[in-house]
């Protein structure tokens, strides 16, 4: 595309009163190397008249627009010109609202931003999507329990082909093993018949769903839209092609054999799963002598909420025990069910179920810390407890004890195995070999043929749950196109799992629809740009394949990286990682930002600091400070980046070699509760910054001139102060000695 430029300056919202526009024009034309006559100004550019001005130029052939007005976060509908490269320069928030009007500083800031905007437009290009051929829109659902069945049905009913793989011989999972279900609907009082069987029938009869039972996934290869899934069944294998995956492989009960302190192992101590089986068979009896159980004790949190076992709450056991107490009471009116709880957790409307169960004369409840189970006469047991409502230390006789065991996600075992492997790997090849030989390999779920491992990476301290870690975005995944649902993700009830599964199915659909159009998925779900490497210069250093948060880059036999583009989320981490600077997007590249940095005017006796700001949080925070008219330090120049992960170290030398005195990175919080939607952007940037120290030291530059600050979007009040602090520190160090060159 041959570019025809148009530069527009808005005088509204105080810009006209803050900056001498004539000077700005002159400067922009000179340094931006554009003819002065294409720079136009308007009183209110976003007004219909102002927009008319731009649109008329577009009619005349202008196709590259640089708009010096307000923040790109606002007036997005007005300044939307399809087909034209549009670069918005934030003169309002970053100059008019935050700098001293008509000061040299204000003028200088405006000059720099306008020039950078022009350079960005010059270096950029209009993106076109990359669409891979032969895409599949079919979905793979792994797991045929409550969540899996729901996901399959929802997707199939929305018109998508579904392949459902279930490890067991029958569909239904735990839901099919229940005697009754806890009430799901108003008035939340009556136990309900398990609904799972209707769903199984529906799934098995659905024309859009193909079911594989007694099957496991041997291998998942490829990328969203083009996933080749090898399904193994009775020794034979079949490969199906799907576009996206819903992982609903559920949970396992916590291993009760670890609960010896709660009496497991004694004949009359059973788990809630065994209780369900027994109730389903008809009678509630004691295993030791088959006598009908009349005094049944339920021990809540058997394993759950216990630092030595499961340090989380399994969410459904309270309601389950209340339900099972009902079984006991239904079978015999002189039977009692005693529930020993830490807290009764029946959130939301489930409280109404608790209320109704509580009202049964034979259901007795107390808060208690159960300390042990001991033998009582006649094969009975004593439940021993501390800190109960009934007294400090008590024991109660029971003829049957039910342990309300919790859940362990099916992802936990593979995760632990893989974590162990990584640990061993760190110790060297020998340790790794020993580990592989000595550790039994658990059942893997997806068996991804991905560079970064065969399963979805789980969060730190998530105990194996494949949770997203984001409150707002429950399906943010580190493996594009693969979405977890149900208890594999969080402990939840079956009803919740069904809802969750519908959500995961939707995300899978979005994924296949987006790859079909060459658009990224969340969080840049509008982006049609993609990383386009100049492979000729690749040295196969593999930093990109290691640092890509989404395992979107594979290596061929020779070790040369190549993209699985549909896994890519367009964060630019590869661009930041690459020491050869070969990765570029149409509207974002190492050269582009580098040139922008180099264009910044550096005065000999002036300090100049560059701030690279994450556009998701830091940039809006800076905008917000501006909206509150908090002054920004005039020595800084802010450049937004997709993610700090895209920060390439060459920018540091670009800046310092040009006399920049300091460089500040504003990124999201990292660590355990990281807030980066590209997982590790700011952490990686910080890591790279630590490496740059050596370079700076070599240049005899103080490494304190570079700093990363973690900032959240709501910290806009403090942000200008944080910047001031950094500027002060740099001023203390003194000017960049390269300035004079």
């Amino acid at each position, binding site marked *: 595309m041959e570019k025809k430029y148009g530069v527009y300056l808005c005088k509204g919202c105080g810009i006209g009163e803050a900056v001498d526009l004539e000077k700005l024009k002159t400067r922009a034309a000179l340094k931006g190397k554009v003819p002065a006559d294409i720079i136009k100004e308007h009183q209110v550019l976003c007004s219909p008249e102002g927009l008319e001005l731009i649109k008329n130029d577009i009619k005349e052939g202008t196709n590259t627009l640089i708009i010096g007005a307000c923040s790109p976060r606002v007036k997005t509908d007005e300044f939307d010109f399809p087909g034209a490269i549009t670069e918005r320069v934030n003169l309002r928030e970053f100059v008019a609202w935050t700098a001293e009007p008509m000061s040299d500083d204000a003028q200088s800031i405006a000059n720099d931003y306008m020039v950078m905007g022009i350079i960005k437009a010059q270096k950029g290009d209009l993106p076109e999507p990359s669409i891979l051929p032969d895409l599949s829109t079919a979905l793979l659902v792994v797991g045929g329990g409550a969540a899996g069945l729901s996901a399959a049905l929802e997707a199939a009913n929305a018109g998508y082909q579904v392949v459902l793989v279930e490890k067991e011989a029958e569909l239904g999972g735990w839901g099919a093993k229940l005697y009754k279900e806890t009430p799901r609907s108003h008035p939340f009082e009556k136990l309900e018949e398990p609904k799972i069987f209707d769903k199984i029938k529906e799934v098995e009869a659905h024309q859009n769903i193909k079911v594989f039972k007694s099957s496991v996934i041997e291998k998942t290869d490829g990328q969203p839209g083009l996933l080749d899934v090898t399904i193994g069944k009775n020794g034979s294998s079949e490969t199906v092609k799907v576009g996206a995956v819903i992982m609903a492989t559920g949970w396992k009960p916590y291993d009760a054999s670890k609960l010896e302190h709660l009496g497991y192992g004694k004949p009359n101590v059973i788990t809630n799963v065994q209780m369900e089986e027994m109730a389903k068979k008809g009678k509630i009896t004691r295993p030791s002598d088959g006598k009908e159980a009349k005094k049944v004790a339920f021990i809540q949190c058997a394993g759950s909420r216990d630092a030595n076992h499961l340090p989380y709450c399994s969410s459904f056991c309270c309601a389950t025990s209340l339900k099972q107490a009902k079984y006991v009471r239904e079978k015999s009116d002189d039977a009692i069910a005693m529930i020993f709880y830490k807290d009764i957790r029946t959130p939301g409307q489930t409280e109404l179920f608790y209320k109704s169960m509580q009202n049964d*004369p034979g*259901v*007795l*409840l107390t808060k208690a810390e159960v300390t042990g189970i*001991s033998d009582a006469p006649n094969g009975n047991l*004593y439940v021993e407890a501390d800190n109960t409502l*009934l*007294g400090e*230390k008590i024991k109660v006789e029971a003829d049957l004890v039910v342990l309300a065991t919790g859940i362990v996600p099916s992802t936990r075992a593979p995760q632990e195995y893989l974590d162990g492997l990584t640990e061993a790997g760190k110790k060297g090849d020998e340790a790794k070999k020993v580990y592989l030989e000595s550790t039994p390999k658990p059942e893997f779920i997806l068996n991804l043929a991905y560079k970064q491992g065969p399963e979805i990476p789980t969060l730190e301290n998530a105990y194996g749950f494949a949770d997203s870690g984001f409150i707002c975005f429950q399906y943010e995944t580190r493996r594009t196109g693969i979405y977890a649902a149900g208890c594999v993700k969080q402990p939840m009830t079956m009803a919740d799992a069904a809802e969750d599964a519908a959500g995961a199915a939707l995300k899978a659909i979005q994924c296949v629809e987006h790859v079909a159009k060459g658009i990224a998925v969340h969080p840049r779900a509008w982006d049609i740009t993609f990383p386009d490497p100049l492979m000729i210069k690749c040295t196969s250093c593999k930093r990109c394949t290691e640092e890509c948060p989404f395992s979107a880059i594979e290596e061929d036999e020779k070790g040369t990286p190549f993209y699985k583009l549909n896994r890519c989320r367009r964060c630019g981490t590869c661009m930041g990682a690459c020491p050869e600077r070969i990765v570029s997007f149409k509207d974002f590249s190492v050269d582009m930002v580098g040139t922008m940095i180099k264009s910044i005017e550096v005065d000999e006796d002036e300090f100049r600091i560059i701030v690279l700001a994450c556009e998701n949080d830091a940039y809006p925070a800076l905008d917000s400070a501006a909206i509150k008219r908090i002054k920004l330090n005039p020595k800084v120049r802010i450049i937004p980046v997709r993610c700090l992960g895209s920060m390439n170290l060459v920018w540091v030398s670009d800046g310092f070699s040009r006399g920049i005195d300091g460089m500040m990175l504003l990124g999201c919080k990292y660590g355990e509760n990281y807030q980066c939607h590209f997982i590790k952007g700011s952490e990686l940037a910080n890591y790279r910054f630590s490496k740059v120290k050596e370079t700076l030291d070599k240049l005899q530059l103080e490494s304190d001139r570079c700093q990363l600050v973690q900032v959240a979007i709501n910290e806009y009040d403090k942000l200008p102060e944080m910047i001031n602090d950094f500027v002060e520190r740099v001023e203390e160090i003194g000017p960049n000695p390269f300035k004079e060159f």
Partner: protein
Amino acid sequence: MADATVVKPDLDFVKGVIAAGGESLKKCYQCATCTVVCNVTPDKNPFPRKEMLWAQWGLKEKFQGNPDVWLCHQCNDCTAYCPRGAKPGEVLGAIRKQTIKQYSAPGALVDIVNKKALMPLIFIIPAVLLAVLLSAAGTFKIHEGDVIFSKFASTHFLQFVFTPVLLFGIAVGVMGMRKFWADMKQTNKVYSGDLMASVTATLKDIAGHKKFKECDVSADRFTSHFLVFYGFVAAAIATAIGVLYIDILGLESPFRIGYGTPVKIFGNIGAIGIIVGVILMMSNRFKNAEKLGVGSYFDWLLLSIIAIVGISGFLAQLLRMVSVAPIAYPVYFIHLVFVFSLFLYLPFSKLAHMFYRGAAICFNKYSGREVK
């Protein structure tokens, strides 16, 4: 865990409390709102939350010698604020009933006041007994001429019949109270205290209706109970003076027609107090019914007996004044029957609270628990 207390749930006890008017018992989820809003509970080991739990678990031995259920005046503040509708006020009432049962003998009389089906017996037994005795005295008929009740039942007859009944009631009550006292001492492991001072303080509390004033939700209970209580006191004093006049001083009855003695006026004021008080009690129960419940059978039985005693007595007097013999004598007979019931069932009915509550309040002082 050698020192662990063995807890023995008793489903029958639970069902018993439920049947005795505590049907909301199981709704309690131990939030302790009741304990907080209660204006009469001590801070240390307060009630009624713990009693609710004991009752839910059927731990009947916990109620042996428990003064707290009796410290409750059933003002129903707890019930008003209970988030679960568990009505601790009613439940404690039901537990108190169970306690009365436990401490009072003979059991047959306990059953009569507790079982709705046996209700007629409450009136039939005294009615038959009185009828037989009056017939034996030859006065069981409608007498001609001016209505003079002593013709129907002579002063001596009344003394000979009613004094033993009253003494029986009091004796049974006092015996129960002593057993209860002993249990309280044992359960709470209190062996010494200033008994006389506690008794005096207790009597002061009762005389001043101190506890009633502390209620929030049904504060008007102070008035009604005050009226009934002092109504009975006045009636008792008037009766005693009557006995003094007739039997000791050998004077004419101070209650005879057309003779407005202060004693008679005093007695009448008492009667009016009883009637107004009991009507207030009843109307209060309806007024707060939605929130607090109308109360149990056991409550209503006593209220009804008192109401009938008061009204029939007053009516008999009016009928005597206007000399309508055919109605006056039957009404008088009804009055006698119900007074008889009141005395006979004194330690078995809800009226037994005078023994147990009195003892509990006293014990609370005696054991030093009341001190805040």
